[in-house]
């Protein structure tokens, strides 16, 4: 789904996929065993994506060629989409086949790495001066996952602290939480993938949870904002009632409705 003006959009998403854990490096035995399972539930395994898990195999010191395993899987109608727990040689083979490699943390499926991919840029935070006219309420950062980045665990998002006033026309983007100690002027735009705290007057636009985090909140001591948004749901100053204007408030999302509550 795209808007009429854009051709594509990046979104982080989670999906489930079966993982094939190998305990033996006997390719013929593996194929035989797999074929048996497929015969029992042909629809379930038909064209199924598969992650090859080599951790146990390597723990037992048994070697196997990823190229041969992948060939065999494709032959019987499955799609290997990832390798985890491989040794250096196996990771290289996977790369050659354009199969992503997961460095393999415990208790973690490869699905989590799509989030890691979107955090690929090392500079975790960006402060940019830009015209405030580009109103991207969702996904202002465009980041693409590559094969390499899938092997990286996601960095924990750091919070960003701003002590200077955020002036009209300035834009601040935080990958984690954003804390502003000074005022945010009308015409300024502050955005965070996490929560936003403003310990002063908020007159500009504040957008929290811009990557879709519906649990993000906005806190401020004096609400005079032009616009507030959480995960794409927004309200403009026109729709902020008198009772909450110029007061300390928190803003959160409940059933896709922005709730603005005074902090007592």
């Amino acid at each position, binding site marked *: 789904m795209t808007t009429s003006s854009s051709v594509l959009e990046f979104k982080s998403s989670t999906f489930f996929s079966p993982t094939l854990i190998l305990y033996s490096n006997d390719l013929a035995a593996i194929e035989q065993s797999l074929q048996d399972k497929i015969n029992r539930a042909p629809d379930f395994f038909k064209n199924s994506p598969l992650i090859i898990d080599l951790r146990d195999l390597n723990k037992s010191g048994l070697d196997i060629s990823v190229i041969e395993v992948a060939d065999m899987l494709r032959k019987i109608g499955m799609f290997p989409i990832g390798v985890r727990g491989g040794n250096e040689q196996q990771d290289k083979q996977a790369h050659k086949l354009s199969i992503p490699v997961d460095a393999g943390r415990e208790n973690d499926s490869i699905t989590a790495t799509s989030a890691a991919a979107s955090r690929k840029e090392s500079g975790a935070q960006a402060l940019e*001066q830009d015209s405030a006219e580009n109103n991207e309420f969702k996904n202002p950062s465009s980041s693409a996952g590559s094969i390499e980045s899938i092997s990286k665990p996601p960095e924990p998002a750091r919070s960003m602290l701003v002590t*200077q*006033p*955020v*002036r*009209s*026309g*300035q834009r601040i983007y935080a990958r984690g939480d954003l804390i502003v100690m000074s*005022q945010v*002027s*009308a*015409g*300024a735009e502050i955005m965070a993938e996490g929560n936003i705290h403003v310990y002063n*007057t908020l*007159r500009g636009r504040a957008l929290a949870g811009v990557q879709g985090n519906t649990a993000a909140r906005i806190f401020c001591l004096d609400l005079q904002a032009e616009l507030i948004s959480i995960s794409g749901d927004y309200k403009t100053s026109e729709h902020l009632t008198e009772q909450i204007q110029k007061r300390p408030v928190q803003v959160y999302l409940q059933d896709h409705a922005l709730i603005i509550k005074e902090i007592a």
Partner: protein
Amino acid sequence: MARIIVVTSGKGGVGKTTTSAAIAMGLAKRGHKTAVIDFDVGLRNLDLIMGCERRVVYDFVNVINGEASLNQALIRDKNCNQLYILPASQTRDKDALTLEGVGRVLEELSRDFQYIVCDSPAGIEKGAYLALYYADDAFVVTNPEVSSVRDSDRMLGILASKSRRAEQNEDPVKEYLLLTRYDPSRVKSGEMLGLDDVQDILSLQLLGIIPESKSVLSASNAGIPVILDEKSEAGQAYEDVVARYLGEDRPLRFIDDKRGFFRKLFGGRS
């Protein structure tokens, strides 16, 4: 080393050139060798306000292009021998200015001047950007009305992110507020923003309030910086601004409506 001051606002018509002329003259009168540069290439005005338009031979762009030396282009003020004016070119546009060129001229001036006042053009385009880039101090000229305050706020954002000091992670540009065309009676009646309203949004160190005054226009027309009109409120207010900038402590003047009962009744204007 000279201290480089930019007089800026974002919005046009708020009194940047009047202020540049006044404070440059004020600094020079106190014995500080001062240069004032017109960055408004294509819309040159400073020479008119300073009353030296008939002595312009070479200009800022000529110096940047190496067509004239700085000494050839600098015009010594007729009222004060410590003050020099570097006029803008009227026949060129802002693209004639380059970052390196401006930097070279300022560096050369820094060698034997104490203060360099840069009169910024309106807007946030190249001319305004080059005027503020090398600044140490910024005088943000603001009128007590919402659009001017908004534009000043934008300018402050640019000072905080695009100036040389910001780019090189040095101490930030020191920002001062100058509230001009202030009319206490209109503030009182609610037609005009008051000092508190402006400071609520900008929160800057206040250098002075210049009251709306007829003497400003007549001084401009006569080509004499208003600070030399010691009888006028505006002239005295600019004198206070210069004194405060140099570290003196002076009480705020001209912020109360002191028109008498009869003058109010008959609508007279001071």
